[in-house]
Structure formats: structure tokens, C-alpha cells
């Protein structure tokens, strides 16, 4: 492209052919006031602030093309006067009070008032009349009394998005920004992409959330920061392998997550302000199941060997994720697993009907192919046995594998188990000695896992007892609903008093009605019960599902917290022992797979630094093409409904341990992905610089 030389305020500046004087100046670090122009939009020449002098005449620098040899003056008394008049015209109908505006301190108009020392109209103030239109929209707030009619939003909607639903309108001789026929944004088929909000220089357009919101809420909510909108978009375009690769850039278990991730991202999805969240997990499962090309395998390269050796205790989500990234950084990694199978809770905790074992095996074998060595049936008893022998660093990722039991009277009976014992033994192909009727104590997801496994093992009567009332249980609604369909009886708002035995045989669980409960400091339970409401729930087996702890002891050689978890330095994975790190459930107690994986990533990065690396474990495995911003109109967009998750029929479900959850069809996946608001498109919009951006650093 041809380069042009011109002079601005006596400084020689180069410009691209066709560039405006305004942009040439801004690029060269010379600030010219402006407010209706924006680097990504066509010029409009509405605000008149960008006036400059050229050959003794005043022109709008946004509409004047830079030309060879041009001499431009941007500051003079005359220009200051013109700009002040322009400002005052804008301010005449603007509220005098900024204090309740969300854009306060991040407002281009406010900053322009400071810069031009023009804070208020000397003119009579002219309050706007047409501010009531279209103020009741989801997601996008319109406080149109703050609008200065710069038209940036109109141009953004049309030029950046090809949606074009915003326009200048006139009523009672007053112009305002609205939609055709003053339709609400929903009726006008707004895509709720937020481009108009991103470019608005005032507080007129805002996102309907607290002022500091993440631009891409799902991605910010994901513990591993998986680039959700990107893989959702790629799935929509049928580029499944690339979609899976985007997930793989952050976590090595897309399929397992596709089955059982608790999707905190969906809780934050902005779409739920319109109707329901995008079914992100189902899109992930579909993409991962349809990754034929496996691009990631070609693009992933382990770094050259560093000669450093890492031992990892525990082959769960955390340990294996760390193993993968550490070997990618060129370290030699060996994972020790106490049990005969690798995978931690993915193989021996989460029941097979939710997470098929061949899925986990296939993902683990991909890690093995990539250089991660796993030794099963090999327990780590002390870091002493590993550190320096010959390992340079050790990661404790042994999880929280001991199910807690509460010492109620009778809890030491041989027919009382912890949920994890049952889940593990079933996973290892054993048959736990259950009776005819089982009562599970606990109301979380683990309780349902245990209860539903019992049902599948042929137990005749399965009960579940929990403190929480109906509607406030900790387990996911889907679990509760399916558990009930499968015949589990739920006793809500009950506290256990004792386990009753008759001679050797367990008879049942004595419970009492709970009126109110709360947890005090240190997890202490405060309980109000209803006197005289005691009852016995008959059962010959009892299963505790009241939380998990680690089985770590002093012998491991690192400091522990008072609750028995590995103690780490704040904000770090480093333990009390130099060279020994800990992460995942071992540190936090049972959380989520995705959190354990995120913790594994963090540990890998820290350990890499410890081993002399740069700690950067980020991978780019697929090309980063800029997403298409011109999304156009999609009729009825706001109303597009969420595709339900596919489960197999109830009688099929009860037959055994086969997976109950089927991926979307290609059509479902596409239409679900279509629902995404593509919040990330906003990140591609430039920021219009204001005077404070030109302060030299």
C-alpha cells in the first residue's frame, strides 16, 4: 500500500492511502478530539469535534483523506471555539448528573468534557422527550437520556454485524435512536451481540449486568478457561475436529467432560437472560465424538527433552492433566496409581452408566501415546521415596478418596458403607455385599450416584435421606428426577439420629424432621428439629454420602491442613516441601473434574518453572481465524429453544451399567450452536482512544 507523508502540527506523519487525517493523526500519537468516529466504523461527521485547519479552512478530519504534503493544524483558538460549541450542543440535552451512570470514569463523553474543558451547556438545556421507547429489553439496557446521537450504534449494527435494526428516527420534531416501528430488540430480531454497547461512547447503551462483567461470561466461568464460543461456532460450521482441538488446547479429556462436566459455564451463559443457557456440554460431546481428523494429534508436539524427571502420585483428572502438560514441556513424567486402573474418579468413582469406561480408557491411552507413563497398582507412601530418587519434582494428586462417615450410634455396623467404597468396588468389577434395602445418607450428586448404582445392582428398595427440603437439594435436578424415575425414595428435611440394629442385623435408620438448619463456622451444623417426629426408615444396609477426605498422613512428608488436606502456599501449588507440589481434590476436597483439570494445568505450569522452564503451557493447536462478525438477521433468534439432552429410555437405563446419555444429532448440535450469542465477537471490536490513552508512559 502506498505511504503518504503529511504534516500535522508541524510533525511529519505517514499515513496509508485512503486513510483519514483523523486516523493518521491518532495512529501517529497526535490526539484530535472526536466522538462519533470509531476505528472500526465508517466516518459520519456528526459530532464536529474533529475539526482541523487545512489551508486556512476548517474541515472535519474524519472525512478528509490524508494527502501527500498536506499541512494540518489541530489546535488553535478558533478550533477550540468550534469544538466547545459542538460540545455544548451535545450537552444541552444530556443529563447534568453523571453520578448514577454506569459508564462513569469509562465514558468518552466525560473524558472529552475534561479535555475540552467544556462541562456544561451555556445554552438552555433541552430535555429529551423520546427516551421511553424500547427501555425494557433483556441483556441490553438503553438509558437514552444519555444518548448524544453519534450514530455509532447504528453503524455498528449495520456495518459490523449486517443486522441493521437500529436507525435514526424522528418524533415530535425530535430525533432519537430506535428500531423500525419502535419494536423491542427481541421483536426486531436483535442478536444481542453487544456490538452497539461496545461502541457507544456514553452510558446510553449498557449490558444489563454489574458494571464489571466478563465480556464472555461462559469462558470466564470455566475453571480451565476453555474458549467456548469458539468451539461452539466451529461446531455450527461443521468443523468438529477443530472444535475439539479448541477444547484440547486447555484440557486433555473432551469426551469425559462431554459426558459428565457439571458445566458451570452454562450457569453464567448470557443466553439465559433470553430464555435458557446454551447447552454447552452437549455441543462439546457431539464435537468430540465426531472428531475424525484428530487435528490435535498432528499439531501437538512435545518440546525437546529437558532431562528433568517428574513423579506424579495419583492418575486422576488432576494428575493426568498435569502429566500431559509436563511431558509436553519436555519433562519425563511417570504417574503412580495405587489402584489397578488409571483415571481416578473418572474410572472408579463416577458410575459407568454416566461415564462409559471405554471413553476414559481411550482418552488415557492418547496421553500414554504422548509419552505419559502410568504405573498402576503402585502406591506412593512418602515423597521421600521419590524426591531425588531420581525425580526432580513430585506432584501429589491423590484426590479425596476416602468416604466420610458420621459417628452416629450404630455407624460401625458391618453393613454400613461409604458411597465411595461401593462405587469403587463396583468399578473394579467386585460385588459389594448389599442387602435388600439400602438407605443412602446425603443429598448431593455422590449420594445419587451411590443410590442409582445400588438400584442397578438389583437392590429392591433404595432410599435417600437428606437435610435439605425438596427443591433445595445439592444434587443436580436431572439426577434427582432420574433417580426418582428409577424408583429411589427421597426423604427430605430429615436428620439422622442413629442406625438401629436388632442383634446382628441392621434394621433401619432413625431420623427426625428438620425444621431449620445452617452451617456455622468450621462446618458446624446448627439444627432445629421437630420434637416427636422420629421415625425409622427400614433398611438392612446404610451408605454414607456425606463428603470425602484424603487418606494423607504425616508419613507422606508434607504439611497437612487441620482437615487433612495437603497444605499449599496461598495462590500456589507448592507444599511445605521444596520440589513437592499438590493440586486437585487433595487440596480442595471433592470438587469438579474440570476444576481438577484446571488445577493440574496450574500445577504443571508452576512445576515447569521450578524445573527451569518458562511455565508457559499454552498451546495453539488450530488456526486462529478471526470469526465472521457479519452474523446477519436470524428470524426469531431470541426465542430459539434449547435442545433437550438425549437420554435412553427408563427400562433400558435400569438394565445395567450401559451409558444412559447420548450425544446430540448433527442437526441438534447445529441448531443448539446457532443459539449462542457469540459474546466473544465483542472482543474483536477496537477501543476508540481518548486523550488519556495518549499520555506518554
Amino acid at each position, binding site marked *: 500500500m502506498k505511504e503518504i507523508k503529511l504534516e500535522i502540527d508541524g510533525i511529519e506523519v505517514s499515513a496509508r492511502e485512503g486513510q483519514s487525517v483523523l486516523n493518521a493523526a491518532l495512529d501517529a500519537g497526535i490526539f484530535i478530539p472526536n466522538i462519533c468516529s470509531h476505528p472500526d466504523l465508517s466516518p459520519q461527521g456528526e459530532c464536529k469535534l474533529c475539526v482541523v485547519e487545512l489551508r486556512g479552512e476548517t474541515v472535519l478530519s474524519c472525512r478528509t483523506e490524508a494527502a501527500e504534503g498536506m499541512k494540518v493544524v489541530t489546535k488553535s483558538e478558533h478550533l477550540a471555539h468550534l469544538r466547545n460549541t459542538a460540545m455544548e450542543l451535545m450537552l444541552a440535552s444530556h443529563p*447534568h448528573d453523571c453520578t*448514577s451512570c*454506569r459508564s462513569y470514569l469509562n465514558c468518552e463523553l*466525560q473524558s472529552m468534557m*475534561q479535555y475540552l*474543558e467544556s*462541562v456544561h451547556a451555556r445554552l438552555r438545556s433541552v430535555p429529551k422527550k423520546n427516551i421511553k421507547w424500547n427501555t425494557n429489553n433483556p441483556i441490553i439496557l438503553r438509558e437514552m437520556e444519555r444518548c448524544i446521537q453519534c450514530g455509532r450504534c447504528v453503524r455498528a449494527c449495520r456495518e459490523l454485524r449486517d443486522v441493521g435494526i437500529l436507525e435514526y428516527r424522528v418524533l415530535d420534531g425530535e430525533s432519537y435512536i430506535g428500531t423500525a416501528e419502535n419494536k423491542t430488540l427481541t421483536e426486531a430480531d436483535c442478536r444481542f451481540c453487544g456490538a452497539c454497547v461496545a461502541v457507544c461512547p456514553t452510558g446510553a447503551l449498557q449490558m*444489563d449486568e454489574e458494571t464489571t462483567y466478563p465480556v464472555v461470561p461462559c469462558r470466564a466461568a470455566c475453571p480451565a478457561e476453555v474458549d467456548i464460543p469458539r468451539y461452539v461456532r466451529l461446531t455450527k460450521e461443521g468443523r468438529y475436529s477443530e472444535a475439539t482441538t479448541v477444547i484440547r488446547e486447555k484440557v486433555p479429556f473432551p469426551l469425559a467432560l462431554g459426558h459428565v462436566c457439571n458445566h458451570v459455564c452454562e450457569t453464567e451463559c448470557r443466553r439465559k437472560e433470553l430464555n435458557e443457557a446454551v447447552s454447552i456440554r452437549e455441543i462439546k460431546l457431539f464435537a468430540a465424538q465426531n472428531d475424525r481428523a484428530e487435528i490435535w494429534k498432528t499439531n501437538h508436539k512435545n518440546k525437546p527433552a529437558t532431562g528433568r524427571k517428574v513423579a506424579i502420585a495419583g492418575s486422576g483428572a488432576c494428575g493426568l492433566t498435569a502429566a500431559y502438560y509436563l511431558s509436553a514441556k519436555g519433562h519425563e513424567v511417570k504417574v503412580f496409581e495405587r489402584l489397578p486402573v488409571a483415571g481416578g474418579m473418572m474410572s472408579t468413582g463416577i458410575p459407568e452408566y454416566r461415564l462409559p469406561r471405554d471413553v476414559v480408557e481411550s482418552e488415557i491411552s492418547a496421553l500414554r501415546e504422548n509419552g505419559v507413563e502410568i504405573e498402576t497398582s503402585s502406591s506412593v507412601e512418602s515423597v521421600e521415596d521419590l524426591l531425588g530418587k531420581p525425580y526432580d519434582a513430585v506432584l501429589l494428586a491423590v484426590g479425596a478418596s476416602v468416604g466420610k462417615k458420621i459417628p452416629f450410634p450404630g455407624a460401625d455396623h458391618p453393613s454400613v458403607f461409604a458411597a465411595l467404597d461401593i462405587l469403587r468396588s463396583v468399578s473394579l468389577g467386585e460385588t459389594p455385599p448389599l442387602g435388600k434395602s439400602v438407605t443412602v445418607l446425603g443429598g448431593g450428586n455422590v449420594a445419587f450416584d451411590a443410590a442409582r448404582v445400588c438400584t442397578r445392582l438389583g437392590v429392591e428398595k433404595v432410599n435417600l435421606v437428606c437435610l435439605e427440603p425438596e427443591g433445595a437439594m445439592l444434587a443436580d435436578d436431572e439426577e434427582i428426577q432420574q433417580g426418582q424415575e428409577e424408583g429411589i425414595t427421597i426423604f427430605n428435611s430429615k436428620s439422622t439420629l442413629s442406625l438401629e440394629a436388632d442383634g446382628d442385623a441392621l434394621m433401619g435408620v432413625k431420623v427426625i424432621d428438620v425444621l431449620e438448619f445452617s452451617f456455622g463456622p468450621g462446618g458446624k451444623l446448627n439444627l432445629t428439629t421437630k420434637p416427636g417426629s422420629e421415625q425409622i426408615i427400614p433398611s438392612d444396609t446404610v451408605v454414607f454420602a456425606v463428603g470425602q477426605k484424603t487418606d494423607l498422613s504425616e508419613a507422606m512428608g508434607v504439611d497437612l491442613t487441620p482437615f487433612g488436606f495437603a497444605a499449599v502456599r496461598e495462590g500456589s501449588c507448592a507444599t511445605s516441601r521444596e520440589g513437592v507440589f499438590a493440586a486437585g481434590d487433595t487440596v480442595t476436597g471433592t470438587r469438579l473434574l474440570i476444576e481438577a483439570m484446571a488445577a493440574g494445568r496450574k500445577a504443571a505450569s508452576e512445576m515447569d518453572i521450578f524445573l527451569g522452564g518458562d511455565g508457559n503451557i499454552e498451546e495453539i493447536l488450530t488456526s486462529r481465524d478471526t470469526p465472521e462478525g457479519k452474523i446477519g438477521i436470524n428470524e426469531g433468534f431470541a426465542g430459539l429453544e434449547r435442545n433437550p439432552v438425549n437420554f435412553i429410555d427408563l427400562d433400558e437405563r435400569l438394565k445395567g451399567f450401559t451409558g444412559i446419555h447420548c450425544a446430540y444429532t448433527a442437526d441438534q448440535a447445529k441448531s443448539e450452536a446457532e443459539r449462542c450469542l457469540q459474546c466473544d465477537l465483542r472482543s474483536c471490536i477496537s477501543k476508540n482512544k*481518548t486523550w488519556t490513552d495518549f*499520555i506518554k508512559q
Partner: protein
Amino acid sequence: MSKVEADVVVIGAGASGIAAAVAAAEKDAKVIVYEKGSTTGGAANMGMGFFAVESRHQKAQMIDLTLDQAFDFFMEYTHWHADARLVRKYMAQSADTIEWIESLGVEFLGVYKYFEKSFPTWHVVKVPGSNKPTERSASVMFKALTDRAVELDVELNFQHTVKKIQKDPETGRITGVSVVDEQGNQIDCECDTLIVAAGGFGNNPEMIKQMTGYTWGEDLFSFRIPGDDGDGVNLMWDAGAVKSPVNVELTYTTPGITDIFKTLSETMRQPNLMVNLEGLRIFNEETMQNTTFTGNAISRQTGKTAFTIISDEIIEDYKKTGLDYITFHHNIKTVDKWQSEIDAYKSGGESETAGLSDLHGEDETGQVCFWEANSLEELCEKTGINYKNLQATIEEYNDCEGSYDTLFNKHPKYMRAIKGKKFYAAIHRPCGYGTLGGVKTNDMLQVLDAENKPVPGMYSAGFDACNIFGDSYCFLLPGNTMGWALNSGRMAGYNAVDYLDSDDFVE
């Protein structure tokens, strides 16, 4: 992660922060400022002027209020709850601060009172080319301070949030701050002194609840300046500062009206009848101009609410004479726009908050705060005021029309009877500009720990360190919050550098 170094780090570039930065840089310190927003001036951009006593403007205007008088008044007002040494230093520096600001090319319009019974201490900044006092005029001064900071090589970082204060675990000295920029990159900045001026926590309802007992959106409708989230006090508390009692700079407001419908709002803030939900008068309405006192009185009532009630005859009166109270910053003199504003307010549909819907909270959307009725009974039905009591109150009140107010001794000229064909009521709720205090400082603005000892190297200024008002903000010496902010910032800036040059500081 990148690393930088400074002598003095300033958190926040609002009124106190930018003043502190300039002051420290004037003493040749290397100063780095971290500001969350994208411009300087913070909450003070909305302001118009600030407090000083014995300034050259006061002398020129023949205002004879002396430093001693102002000091004595202030200490009496606060019942000596305030740190007298600090108040004295602040007031003693205030006149010079006016000249300090003028040396940057900023002009003042003159010195003003805020309302009739207040002292003339409010130095209002002039907007170039205009001789009218205008809202936001102080922002002109922040442009000048910013330019001055740049000239003195202060490094200004916008959209940078400080996440943690670093201290030496052994000596307890400040060693630096961890900062995150707009893109989320982490920066570690080493420094020897730190001035925290992050603007209080007016935008943090949880902290407001915890520290003041008000529930924002329910019984407090204070301004929420985005960014004033309490970062500063939280950082200081985490780094060993002791918590100090916090006050709201209390005023009152009619949600959804005060900011937008100025004639409506100002007319309903005239010294006419004010009652509580029980229909009883609560104070001498002449005091309404002292917004803190009014806020205090309203806060005592059921639901922390009060109502002003007027009638069409009063409006007719105002059409002839103009309003009784004209506030300097809103400058509404007549009721010309009375009807058109009522129409605009109502056209929003009474169910929807007019205008600034969201920032005033979800709870306010759907609230009606101004009512019209054809009878007092109807008005009571709409507002929930006790009708029987109100009838009695008005009877008694109307009896005193134009004469001695037997209950509260309000001036006869404000005793306008409530009678006519139409009645209007507006609800008033506690409001405020921001939170005052959070940490305790000594008279050097050094932040104190639980043992009343300075945390070495840590200073604070502005809202975060504003403990000088006792239980109520002092509107009687107007311009006091911005005055405090600029002067405490300026003192903190100088003191921080003096500390670095002193024997107390060991490298």
C-alpha cells in the same frame, strides 16, 4: 508478568490520588499511579468546588471567617471525635491549596455558600468561557492536575487494578503492589511507599451493609460511582490496617426523580410540609437544605422514609413568586417545567422507573416515587401515609399558615397551607455521595494498625481515610469532601516523600 519500580505508588487517580501523585512528584519522587477507570478525577468530576478558609478569594470577597473560627466550629460540630491535629493541618493548608491549583492555570469563579445557613467556604471552579456555576466544573481542574502529573513524569496507568499490597513479612514495611491490567496481565510493582486513595466503597452494597447497617436499594439510594468498590480499604485491611467506623456522606433523594426531573425534584424539596408514614411532621422543614440533617431525620422514620406534600395552590404561588429555595448547582428558579416533567415522568408508565433505571437498582424499577391525587384521602391510599393522622397534622399546620409554627418554629413565610384541588407527594429516602472512612490514619496520614502504630510506608487519603466528620458529614462548611480529598492527598504525597528522605526509612 512484568516488573516495575517506583518510590511512591498511588492507588486511584481520583481527587486525592491525583493530588497525592502531583505532590509527591513535585518533591522529585518517581511516582506510579494505578487507576481502574479510564480517566482521572474519580467521583470529584461531578463536583463544582471545594473547601478552603482564609483564601485570597475569601479575603477579596470580604469574608471574615478565620481559620480559628472554622476550626473551632468544626471541632464543636464533631464533638471532638475528629483528630484535631489532622483537622488543623488540613484547614491550615487549605488556602494554599487554592493557589496551588491556580498555579496550574485553573480559575475560580468565587466563594459560595451551599445554602443560606452555611459558611462561604465553597471555592467553585470556573469553566473557561462561562461565568455560570456549573455541575461537573471541577473536572476542568482534574485535566489540569493530570497535565501537571504528566509534566512531572508521573506514570499514569489507566484500567489497571491493584490486587494486592506486598509487605516485608519481617519489618512489616510496604514493598510493592500486584496489579492487573485491562488484558489481565499481571504486573508486580516494587515501591517503598504507597498512598491508597481508591474512593471508598460507595459501589459495594455488601460492605455498606456490613459497615453502616444500611441496605442499599432498600433503605439507602446512594450514588454508586462505578469503581468505588472498596478495593482500597480491603487492600489496606488485608495488609494490616485497622478498621475504622464508616459513615455515609448522607443526603436524601427521590429515587428516579432527583437526578432527572429537576423541576419536579426541586419543587418537592421546598420547605413545605414533610411527614412520615404515620402522617406526623418530623422536623423543621426549613432545615431541608442541610441535606445531611434531613437524611439523618429521615433515617429515623419507619422504613427510613418521609414525604413532602404540596397542593396546586402552592404551585400557583410558586408560579408567581418563584421557588423559595434555589440550589446553586441545580439553579432551578421557577416551576415552568412542572407540568411537562410530571407528564414525562408519568409517560414512562408509572410502573417503570423514569430514566436512570438500572443503576438505581432493580428494586427501584417498578417503584413510583411521586404521586398526584384529587384528595388527601386518595393521596394517602396511594402513598400509604396514615390518613387520619395526616388530616390532623394538616389541620394543625394550616392553622399556622403564615404565622408562628407552634410545633417546630419554622419561619412564617414558609408556612404555606396545604389546600386546593390537587395534591402532590414525593417520597424521600436516605441517599449519599459515598462512604467516609474505612481505615484510621494519624495526622501524617500514615495508616494505623490495631496497636495504633503506622504501617511503615502506607498512607491513605480521600474517602478511604476520611474520619474527620464524626457521626455526620458537615455541610455547614461546604466543599469539605473534595477539600479533604485534595488536601489529604496533597499532604500524603509530601509526607510520603519526606518519610523516604528521613532517618525512619532504611533501605
